[in-house]
């Protein structure tokens, strides 16, 4: 046994190490999966945020440029109107003054807006707008001199200027604005196309990562289930083994108890029947000799000595036999045996033992008789040895399907949850072998009460009669 132990220990260590290893692998797997999922989440959120920002920016830029073009066009129309009004008005210096100022304001604002727009654009995209600016500048420089003309010149020139230069300039700029607008639209479309491309890319990436995460999760789950299954299997096997061992141990202890009891009974019977009876016969013979003998006092004295010795011997043998197993148990039944025991204990210890029986049959199964007798014996022993009880009451009651035994004392009880021993383990073993229940109810303030409930099956009665 001791030689085997180191080997078993090593095996256990190896096993525990491998268990530790697979546990670490599982832990790492689940950790990685969780981290992967967290990364997917963060990445998606971040990308979506970027999309939103980029989209807004594109739309804002587009609208800004559109707005600028709109302003250029408006400026163009308004300035045309102002020039026409200026030419048509004959001689009202105030009105002329107002128109001139208005024209100047429109000129400045339009130029400023366009320039600001150009400034906001990246260099690569400035070209159409710069073209527009140059044309616009030409326009301003064509129209500007009209306001410097006198009334006469104005009249002569006015219509031709209006019809010629201004209109052609006008048309040209409008054409450019249209072109620029087309460019702007293209740009918007381009940006949107790019955005959706990036979005598609993101979707592909998400799909891939999700697939990886899902499949690795699947593998992990499968291996976990397998691992747990294996653990469960081995656990079940261990449990089975321990149950088996327990059963074997129980069987063994039952056989041990049975063997002891059988042996005791055999020796007790042998002592009682063979040795005891032979001594009785011896005594009778001695008596016969004594009666037949003459008045030889030496001879008579010798016979008397033999008689005394034989009598002592008979007593000795009887007591030994009774200690091993009381013949009452077999000759008279359980109750007389218990009563005898009660009297013997009373005599020996001074403790008053009261026996109460309620319709206990004379032919109980052998095993039951022995079990109850031995339990009462052990309990009475405890009462006098440990509890220092003054009074004990032993009650045996037979009911249709079971046998109830209780042993109550008025000694100094104990705490059953803490104190083991006192032969309780042995008692419990005997009781559970017959499928019964043993209850210990004890309290340091009010003594101990031991209760045994043994089932009485017809099968056990049969087997009892067979073995008896």
């Amino acid at each position: 046994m001791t030689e085997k132990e180191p080997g078993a220990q090593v095996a256990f260590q190896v096993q525990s190490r491998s268990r530790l290893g697979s546990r670490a692998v599982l832990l790492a797997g689940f950790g990685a999966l969780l981290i992967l999922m967290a990364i997917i989440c963060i990445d998606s959120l971040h990308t979506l945020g970027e999309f939103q920002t980029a989209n807004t920016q594109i739309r804002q830029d587009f609208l800004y440029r559109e707005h600028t073009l709109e302003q250029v066009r408006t400026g163009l129309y308004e300035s045309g109107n102002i020039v026409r009004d200026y030419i048509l008005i004959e001689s009202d210096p105030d009105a002329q003054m107002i128109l001139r100022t208005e024209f100047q304001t429109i000129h400045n604002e339009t130029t400023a807006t366009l320039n600001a727009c150009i400034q906001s654009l990246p260099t690569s995209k400035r070209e159409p707008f710069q073209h527009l600016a140059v044309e616009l500048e030409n326009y301003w420089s064509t129209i500007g001199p009209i306001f410097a003309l006198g009334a006469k010149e104005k009249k002569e020139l006015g219509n031709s200027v209006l019809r010629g230069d201004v209109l052609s300039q006008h048309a040209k700029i409008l054409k450019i604005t249209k072109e620029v607008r087309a460019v702007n639209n293209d740009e918007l479309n381009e940006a949107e196309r790019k955005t959706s491309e990036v979005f598609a890319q993101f979707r592909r990436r998400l799909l891939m990562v999700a697939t990886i995460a899902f499949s690795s999760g699947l593998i992990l789950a499968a291996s976990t289930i397998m691992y747990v299954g294996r653990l469960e299997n081995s656990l079940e096997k261990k449990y089975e083994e321990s149950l088996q061992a327990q059963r074997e141990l129980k069987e063994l202890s039952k056989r041990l108890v049975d063997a002891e009891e059988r042996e005791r009974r055999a020796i007790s019977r042998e002592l009682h029947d063979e040795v005891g009876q032979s001594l009785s016969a011896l005594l009778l013979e001695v008596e016969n000799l004594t009666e037949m003998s003459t008045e030889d006092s030496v001879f008579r004295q010798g016979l008397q000595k033999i008689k005394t010795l034989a009598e002592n011997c008979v007593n000795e043998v009887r007591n030994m036999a009774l200690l091993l197993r009381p013949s009452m148990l077999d000759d008279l039944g359980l109750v007389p045996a218990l009563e005898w025991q009660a009297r013997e204990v009373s005599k020996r210890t001074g403790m008053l033992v009261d026996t109460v029986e309620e319709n206990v049959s004379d032919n109980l199964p052998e095993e039951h008789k022995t079990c109850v007798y031995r339990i009462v014996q052990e309990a009475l022993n405890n009462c006098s040895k440990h509890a220092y009880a003054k009074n004990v009451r032993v009650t045996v009651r037979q009911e249709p399907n079971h046998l109830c035994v209780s042993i109550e004392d008025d000694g100094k009880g104990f705490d059953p949850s803490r104190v083991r021993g006192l032969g309780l383990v042995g008692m419990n073993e005997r009781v559970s072998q017959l499928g019964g229940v043993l209850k210990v109810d004890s309290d340091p303030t009010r003594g101990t009460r031991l209760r045994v409930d043994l089932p009485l099956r017809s099968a056990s009665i049969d087997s009892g009669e067979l073995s008896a």
Partner: protein
Amino acid sequence: MKRLRILLADDHIVVRTGLRALLERQANLEVVGESENGRQTVELAASLGPDVVVMDVAMPVLNGIEATKTIVTQRPATAVVILSMHADESYVMRALKAGARGYLLKDSAAADLISAIQAVSQNKSFFSPKVSRILAEDYVRVLKQKGAVDSYDLLTSREREILQLLAEGKANKEVATALNISPYTVETHRRHILEKLNLHNPAELTLYAVRKGIIS
């Protein structure tokens, strides 16, 4: 004087031989048969009709106490003396309940057997002095331990008189004749005695008398 016819029942031949040698030296006793188990004893008792059966307790097939029960029921005229290794109350009580009239210990059989046979043949009870002593001692000890009053003190002197006669094995009628009263009065007294002493049957009454030393 008529010789008493005796049946010996013991499963040990050495014991039977010893007993036979002992009894055959008495002129007024005659051993008419021997048996080695309970059933055989019952059969021989029926066929031989002995006056007294000397019966061992521990016998195969049917034990002595069961055999006694049957014999006493079948042939009330036959008296049974039990021979036992045990002086304990359990055995004495069982033997008395079964209907035995005498109870002897094997180690004192040689000394007491003749007197026992003579006593039971006259319808009296007989116990080995050692048995009486042990029963009495137990009784006194239990009384002391319980601190109880001796219930014997509760009996009137007439009841004590009747108790002794009954314990000796006399029937109500015999007691009535002896005391010159009616058998019904005896029965009433008997009931009172059993009640006062908390006894339930004739066997317990006899056992009580032995313990108290009223009879031996």
